[in-house]
């Protein structure tokens, strides 16, 4: 599938730049509201919970529980530079620090809903991916 180059590049420049910048430094960073502590991905220009414009970068833990997962087997369903990852398991993880995030799951594994996971930072083609694997409860 084609890359959404321009809009992604634009998003990366402004409110969401912190995310990829954090991954590059092997830190998982979220924008957290200084007024009410609400956080979510993607970062919005202001806090949707209380309306505050004061958001701070907050490094959070990569640990959490699997909320859902899929296994992608077909090339046309992944971005061009991920074809070599097939079959690709993607997990939706409810992180311990209160936000939900998508991530790759350790190659060859099959996750389960409710499974305890933790992420590690993996370099791939000039960027950093968060890859989740099973963790002790």
């Amino acid at each position, binding site marked *: 599938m084609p890359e959404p180059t321009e809009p992604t590049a634009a998003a990366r420049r402004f409110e969401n730049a912190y995310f*990829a910048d954090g991954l590059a430094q092997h830190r998982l960073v979220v924008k957290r509201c200084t007024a009410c502590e609400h956080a979510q991905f*993607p970062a919005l220009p202001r806090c949707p919970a209380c309306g505050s414009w004061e958001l701070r970068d907050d490094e959070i833990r990569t640990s959490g529980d699997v909320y859902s997962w899929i296994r*992608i087997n077909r090339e046309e369903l992944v971005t061009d530079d991920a074809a070599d990852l097939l079959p690709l398991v993607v997990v939706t993880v409810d992180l311990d620090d209160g936000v939900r*995030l998508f991530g*790759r799951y350790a190659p060859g594994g099959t996750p389960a809903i409710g499974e305890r996971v933790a992420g590690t930072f993996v370099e791939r083609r000039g960027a950093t991916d968060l890859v989740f694997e099973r963790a002790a409860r």
Partner: protein
Amino acid sequence: MTRTAAICGVGYTPFTRDSGASVLRLAVEACDAAVADAGLDPADVDGVATFSLNSDSTPAVAVASSLGVTESKVLLDVQMGGQAPCYLTGLVARLIECGEIETAVVYRAMNGRSESRVGGMAFPGEGALYRYPIGYGGYASYVAMWATRFLHETGQGPDDLWSVVERQSAAAATNPRAIRPGGVTRDGYFDSPFVVEPFRKWDCTAEVDGACAVVLTTLERARDLRWQPVVVKASAYSAHSQSGTDIGDHLAWSDYSRNYTSWLRDRLFGAAGLTPADIDVAEIYDCFTSTVLIGLEGLGFCGRGESGAFLREGGPLAVNTHGGLLYEGYLHGMNTVTEAVLQLQGRAGANQCAAHATAVVTSGALMDGSALILASE
């Protein structure tokens, strides 16, 4: 005097894998067919509405010009996918009721197979950089992510997805418009590999080239036209809290086991003064099998976790009578609306339901979407 809006005609091009025609040509063919089907003339049309995803279609103004519309009072182009057909039809009905326009065409046209395949489309937006860098692409993947959670939470599984395939592929076998031959067997289903687990190819819609359209006018005028008027009894759209920042952004949506149907249900049925038990026909948006199950439960046609069994029991409710988008072809749900109209007018051919006074139609799969309640007069 209060005005009521009614659908008075439908039009289709053939659904193909390679139309060999421009999207504008397809759009005009379908709109012209719909106007003629109603027994109207393009000069009667004063409104045109359509939707597109990542510029995959042709704008309403081009269709109005090609049709020979004398004066357009409303042209609507919305950037939406399958959430739009019921939404636009409902909006146009309200515009007719309040007297802004008299007669309007709502269409969807696309070379969805030979040119812009949504299955391989990346959606730009704020959510993009949380998905594509890890390879999480493709709309099928997002609906699959919801399906895994939905099936888990409701205690359902592959047999329940199969129940959708069984019913709808059987309907497609007797629908001459269907792009897929239908008649998928249980072994044929379970022997086919996963495209994106938990979906096999039979759980996924078939992209097509083509167009279809509906024409709406006042009920008063529709009574003098060719077919029995189909009254737009109620319409509703919902994008509940934290519906995301683009069509694929479901990061902040809290519950993947419930989509917009759960949120608009009370408004929809309340506005029509009806309950699910009053409905004869349900045309549920089905880019993938799981959305039929989520929709039946969300709208209250059955209890939570009961949708697969509900389909297997084969009660009085007719569901996705044309084989759905899954088997007729993926015109992003516009053909879900037209099928409901054909059913209510009693002209659905071999797939005509015995009881066809009322229908619910839905548009959309995930966070946001729309629905209609239609009734024959």
